[in-house]
């Protein structure tokens, strides 16, 4: 069609906007965003406003303040304790994950040793299995060594992060020039020296990537701590939310004296997601790059 006025390559983007397309995109925008917006607003309302007011109207500072006070007084600052627990578990596990994962991914990508291929395949298989698969068996194992209730019973399983090993493996096998290592070897550098002086300084992007993913996975995990930690004082905030939920009279009419109002639950949910939300806002590119890396090599 030589009369086609559109320039090559950009034609699709020059079409007039298709109203059907715009409508579909707008409907899904509402679907994805309205619940988040509602949650933000709910924390600023009283329970009465929540039921009778416009669902997407803002409440008041005083209601927010009241919800905050009510939430923090629940079991003497339990919410802060839970947030603190989440932070403790997530960050300690993150630190261990990085110390374990980066050298392992590096060795799989750059060095030759016996059992390397087996380890790689095992990593891929375990990585593709959802992490809830082993929770009940893990409980049986931890119970057998009498560690149920110890914080290590969830920190150590969190630290086992095959996806991180895989990401590191991909990163080093595509981004690290082998000549550098060969030169280091010729210069008499030890294998560990080469890792420390050459590979680690180059590894910053993948450290960030593994760090983000591991943190988000640890922070949002529910099943494992739910099964392995028996006492409220040890709960991470995700499990704590479940406890609060049990004390909301509208959801559980048999609740006793520890009543939690719905706006307090909304506020608690907001607090629980804040760290992940911050990570999301600052690292969208990273996180997406990681999802892509999950399916391709380089």
């Amino acid at each position, binding site marked *: 069609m030589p009369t086609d006025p559109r320039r090559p*390559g950009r034609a699709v983007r020059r079409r007039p906007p298709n109203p059907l397309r715009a409508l579909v*995109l707008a409907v899904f925008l509402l679907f994805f965003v309205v*619940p988040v917006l509602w949650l933000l607003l709910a924390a600023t309302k009283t329970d009465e406003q929540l039921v009778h007011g416009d*669902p997407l109207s803002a409440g008041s500072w005083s209601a927010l303040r009241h919800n905050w006070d009510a939430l923090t007084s629940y079991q003497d600052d339990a919410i802060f304790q839970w947030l603190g627990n989440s932070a403790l578990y997530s960050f300690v596990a993150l630190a261990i994950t990085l110390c374990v994962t980066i050298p392992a991914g590096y060795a799989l*990508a750059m060095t030759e040793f016996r059992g390397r*291929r087996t*380890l790689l395949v095992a990593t891929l298989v375990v990585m593709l299995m959802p992490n809830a698969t082993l929770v009940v068996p893990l409980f049986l194992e931890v119970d057998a060594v009498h560690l149920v209730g110890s914080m290590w019973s969830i920190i150590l399983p969190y630290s086992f992060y095959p996806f991180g090993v895989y990401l590191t493996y991909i990163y080093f096998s595509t981004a690290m020039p*082998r000549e550098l290592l060969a030169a280091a070897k010729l210069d008499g550098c*030890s294998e560990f020296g080469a890792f420390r002086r050459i590979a680690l300084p180059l590894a910053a992007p993948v450290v960030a990537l593994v760090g983000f993913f591991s943190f988000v996975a640890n922070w949002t995990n529910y099943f494992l701590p739910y099964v392995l930690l028996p006492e409220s004082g040890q709960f991470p905030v995700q499990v704590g*939310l479940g406890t609060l939920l049990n004390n909301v009279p509208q959801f559980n009419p048999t609740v006793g004296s520890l009543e939690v109002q719905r706006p307090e639950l909304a506020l608690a949910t907001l607090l629980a997601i804040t760290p992940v939300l911050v990570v999301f806002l600052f690292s969208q590119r990273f996180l997406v790059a990681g999802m892509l890396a999950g399916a391709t090599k380089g």
Partner: protein
Amino acid sequence: MGAPSHGASRIAWPGRAGHGFVAPYVVLLIAFGVVPTVYAIYFAFTDASERFAGLSNFTTAAADFRFLPAIGHVALYLLVWLVFLVVLVVGLALSLHGLTVRAADRALRFLYYLPGALAGAASAMVWLFMLDPAVSPVGFLLRALGYDTFGQVIAPGHLPILLAVIAFWTGAGGWIVVMYGALNNISPDVLEAARIDGAGPWQVAWRIQLPLLRKWIVYMVILSFAAGTQLFVEPQLLSQASNGVAGRDYSLNQLSYDFAFQNDNVGSAAAISVELLVVGLVVAGLFVARSGFFDAD
């Protein structure tokens, strides 16, 4: 860019430093991958006094009145969710990719992706409210459909759809971004050639873009399938919030949990775990072996 990853190009130092690098990881892999698996198998085949029990734990679990319904629930949920996921994620990614205004498609991708931050218990919390006609911003819609109370909305028959909606809300944005990235990799020349040959947008999508997205769709379906069989937190919280209108043994993982902690029947709990484990292993193994996605060099 394929990595030049043949054994020959890997650097071999004399000695065993390679093992030193992987040793801590191998310890964790054994402790939290291999040992629990072995443990599950051991418990699944022994009775309370640790004698070999044949398949009796499996038959006990399978004969339990909650077992078949749980399989049915999970299967129905998976079906609804995977259909949602494939149709809508691909449709939305194609729509976004065809947008004329660059800034709009970037902003939309981010906003679609945002609920991913609410993974886990948080998304279930949000949807408890969304599904309660008394407080939901779409309460008018729920009432128009004839549901006036939370209990009516989450009637057991609705759960597969509701759980699929929750999972879609949390996870779809990430996949949309992935699909969008894959669409960007299709050469504009190919699309232009099709257009010059007279193909409309639908034909371009159907004949060119969809076939090129295929492997990404497969990747998404397989990972989502494996994750979906492990359903736990959403039905658990729905059940808590509805005083049992949504049963506490809706999914297989919930049933396994109840066998272990309510019925004191560790063997049957392990038997269900083993079954779920086999599903997970088979899916992962097939994928690694067949797809070529993960060439272990």
